[in-house]
Structures are given as C-alpha cells and as structure tokens.
C-alpha cells in the first residue's frame, strides 16, 4: 500500500530543504574550479584545516569529560537549584559568540579575574594560544552535549540501575556498563553536535584567541580573512570545510546511530 504524503506537510518540507541546500549548492556552483587544486593544497589551507580538526576534537573531548558528569548531576542528583543550574548551562547557547569571547577574556585574559593569577603564579597565559581556541570552542559547544546527554539520562529507566545494584555493581560500574550503553545514542548525538559547533565557531575564538596562522587560525577565521582580499580563496576554503564536515558527520551517523 502506497503511503500518501499529505501536501500540507510535503510542501513546507520541500521549501525547508531547499532553504538549507540551495546556499550550499550556490557555493559549489560558484566555486573557482580552475584554481581549486592550487588553493586546496596550499600551506595555509592545510594548516588551518589541521588546526580546525584538532581543536574541534580536543574541545569535544573536554566537553565529554566535563559535560557527561554535569549532565548526570542535573538529571540524577537531588541538588537543590538544579532547575537554575540547567538554565545557566544553556546560556552559552543563546549568548552571541563574541560576547562569550569577551567574557572569557574578562575572566581568563591577562588581566582577567582568574587569568591574572594564572599568569603571575604559573606563567600560563591562555589568550592567543591554541589552548585558548580549544577553550573558546568548548565554551560554546558544551551546552549541546549537556542538554543531549541530560535528556537521554532522564529518559533512561532507573530500574536497570537498581537491577545492576542488586547484582553487586558499584555506582561507577553501573554507570559505565549499564547507564552509559543505554544512553549511547543521546551521547553520540550530543558529541556530533558539539564537534560540529566547535568546528564552526568564529566569534568567541577570534575574540579570545585572536588570529595567527598555524596557532589560532582555524578554518572559519581563514575564510573570513580570505574574504577581505581574495573571495575566490574564501569560497575554496568554505567548500573544503563543507566537505570535511559532511564527510565526518555522515560517517559518524552511519556507524553509531544505527547500532
């Protein structure tokens, strides 16, 4: 029996799809295919791409290490004021990224609340470093992970954790071998979103970490700067970033979410 798709839904859906895909198609159509190979394998592109991938991945690791326990705290503990905490955790989502960058500067900059002491006591200075890029990206991307994982945890059945307890599993073991596997789709979805967001981050990165090739110039920054002088190069960089992102996201989805 053929399933009938109602026009009322199909039409807006098609418009929505077009809205999302046509700009990407525009990039591909207007690409300077002639100069593509030269640009593609240039030093700057390679550097920026490598830096982008490394920083986004490191930022995602930071988000996982800190975010999953935070999500667990929000979903499962009895802490008072959890509702407020949850709202605060989502602030970086609605904050304009540049504002996030400024906030990071005010706290972790050389004269920042904490940064001042980091500099004086340990000689650690975060602005204008690759670590700074990772930090800025983690700041804007973490809410995606926390919200995703918290949602999955809340939907997970706590009775399985009780069953594990009656079998003698400690809370940590239960988390590792029972809870985590059961929320894995939510964790994966959150990780993918987190990585994608970190990869595309611009405002917070350029404000907090600045711009220097090989150290803090990520792909989005390279695109923006190229736009100043060489729009063709900007298009090429954009296409490279587009393909890399699509490849990683598509690859991840197939492997994990279908399991």
């Amino acid at each position, binding site marked *: 029996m053929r399933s009938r798709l109602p026009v009322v839904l199909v039409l807006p859906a098609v418009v929505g799809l077009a809205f999302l895909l046509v700009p990407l198609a525009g990039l591909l159509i207007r690409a300077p295919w002639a100069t593509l190979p030269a640009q593609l394998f240039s030093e700057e592109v390679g550097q920026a791409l490598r830096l982008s991938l490394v920083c986004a991945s490191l930022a995602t690791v930071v988000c996982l290490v800190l975010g999953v326990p935070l999500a667990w705290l929000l979903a499962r503990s009895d802490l008072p004021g959890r509702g407020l905490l949850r709202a605060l955790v989502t602030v970086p989502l609605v904050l304009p990224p540049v504002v996030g960058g400024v906030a990071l500067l005010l706290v972790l900059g050389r004269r920042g609340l904490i940064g001042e002491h980091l500099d004086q006591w340990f000689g650690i200075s975060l602005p204008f470093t690759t670590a700074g890029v990772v930090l800025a990206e983690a700041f804007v991307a973490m809410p995606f992970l926390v919200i995703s994982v918290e949602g999955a945890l809340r939907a997970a059945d706590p*009775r*399985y954790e*009780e*069953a*594990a*307890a*009656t*079998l*003698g*599993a*400690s*809370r940590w*073991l*239960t988390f590792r*071998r*029972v809870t985590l*596997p*059961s929320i894995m789709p939510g964790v994966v979805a959150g990780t993918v979103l987190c990585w994608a967001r970190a990869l595309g981050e611009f405002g917070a990165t350029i404000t907090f970490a600045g711009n220097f090739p090989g150290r803090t110039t990520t792909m989005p920054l390279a695109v923006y700067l190229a736009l100043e002088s060489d729009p063709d190069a900007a298009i090429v960089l954009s296409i490279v970033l587009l393909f890399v992102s699509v490849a990683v996201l598509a690859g991840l989805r197939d492997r994990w979410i279908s399991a």
Partner: protein
Amino acid sequence: MTLHADLRVQRAGFSLHLDLALEPGEVVALLGPNGAGKTTALRALAGLLPGGRVRSGESDWDGLPAEKRPIGVVFQDYLLFAHLTALDNVAFGLRARGTRRTEANAVARRWLDRVGLADLARARPRTLSGGQAQRVALARALATSPELLLLDEPLAALDVSTRLRVRSELGRHLADYPGHTLLVTHDPLDAMVLADRIVILEDGRVVQQGTPRDVVRQPRTDYVAHLVGLNFYRGVASGTEVRLGEGGTLTIAEPAEGPVHVVFPPSAVSLFPSKPAGSPRNTWQAVVSGVEQHAHTTRVDLDGSPAVLADITTATMAELRLQPGTTLWVSLKATEIHTYPR
C-alpha cells in the same frame, strides 16, 4: 542460618511493619492485594529502600546499600540489560563482584544450561520470549550464589499458558536453591504451588501466616477468603447458632462460643427458585448481583442476609434462568459450615 528481617518503612500515607524469619532452603511467599506493601518490603530487604534491620546469622545488613548485600533479585519485568547477550547478563553479577571474565562466563554457561537455555547464550534479550527471559533473569540472580533470593511477581508478565509451565519449572529451581527465598505475588496460585509458607500482607501489616494448607482452610480476612474462593464471615457463636456481623443467623453442626470466623465453600451452597423443604437448616432469600462463568461451573454472587457466593453447574444455571436481579432461595447444610475462633 535463619535470616531475620524487621522491616519498617514510612511513606506518605502508608507504613510498613513486617517481621520475617526465613529459613535456608525455605520459600516464603508474600501475598497481598495491591498497595499492601509487598514490593516495598522486597525493596527494603534488597537495600533499595532504607527501612529496617536485616540480620543473617552473624552479619548485619543495616545501612548496607543494595550492591553490598548478598542478594539476587528477579524483577517483574526481568530488567535484562538490552545491550548485553544472555550470557553476559548472567555473568554480570559475577564480573561486577570481581570474578575474571573466563571464569564468570563458565559459571554463567552452566547456569544457562541448568535453565535449559544453553543454545541461547549469544542471544540478545529482545529476541527472547517471555518464558525464556524469565529463566535468564532467574539464572542471572542465582549465578552469584546469593544468600537471599527475592522474586517480585516473577510470573506476572507471562501469558496464562506459559505461566503454568514456567511455574512448575520455577518450583523445581527453587527447590534446588539452598538459600533463603522470598517470593512476592498477588496470584494465590503462585503462592500455593511454590511456597512452603505464606505470609499475607494487608495495609502494611501481616494479617496471617502459615503453610498454604493452613491459610486456605482457615482464612483470617476477607481478602484471603476471597482469594482462595470461600464464603467468609465474622460472627458471634452461642452453641449451634452463629449471629453474623453483617446480618443473618446460621445454624452450625459443631457448637462454638464467642467471636468466630465462619467459612464455607461456594460449592456447599444450593439455589432454589422457591423456598425448599427438607433438612437444610440454613435457608434465606437472596438477589443475584453477579454471575461469573467458568469452564465447568458458574459462580453466582448473591446479596442478602448474609451475602453469599454459590457455585452451580451450567445446567442448573440455565434451568433457573439466572440473571442479575433474580430473587432466589439459598440453602446450606450446617455440616458444611466450618467455624474457628477469631
């Protein structure tokens, strides 16, 4: 080594007050209506709820969380871990307590063999039937050789025909198990078939305990009587007459004095369209309020002084043209009535 439990749990609008003594190898059934506190008692014993002192021989389980108690639990929905195979599920408890993988797997395999599921070791829980899942859950609970086995409505999730078969198998496994067993159920048949001793729980308090036979023959509350399908009343006896609390007077064969429980089976009740003549001393008028058809008998619920349950053949039912609202005469032989002091 007897396991003693003094369970006290306080909740909003409910309190549990239950003392249990479980002997090793004994299966005790905790039977009661919904809301009686059976599951609460089980969870308190398991350490999933705080509430009460549990002592096993020399060791005291007070304050120990569930993961530190030597228990095994079979949950109503089995709660098998969906991402692990049947073998890994059964081995889970052993590995959680530190046993190495190869040894744990060997023990798990033996248990799966014992419950007859050796060839399903690599299967995932979602591919198992209800009966198979129940057996894996049992194997998982027993694999760690716990001191106390707790079963929470272990057959409730099964359909009727599977339940019959699984119940007898479960009985065999429980008989082999040397530890203490507490079985929580609302199905009296489970209790009758599987338990050595029944504890009836109502509103958080024990109202009766004893062997299945004792409980059936001498129920102490409406719930128990209804459960085992008996007519049950409270009355005051003087000689061969018993005045029933809810109205009516019955003549009994064996004289008694003072407050008594009065019991007789529905099969002892006869129904007549008009007042019968002859020996039965107990006859009264009643109105049909409900009719329940079973395979070979019909159970009729009648309102009167007193209200009564009667079992009649289907033929009689047709003959009398019984429906709710029909007025009939109830007759009962004094010799069929059983009284015992309250």
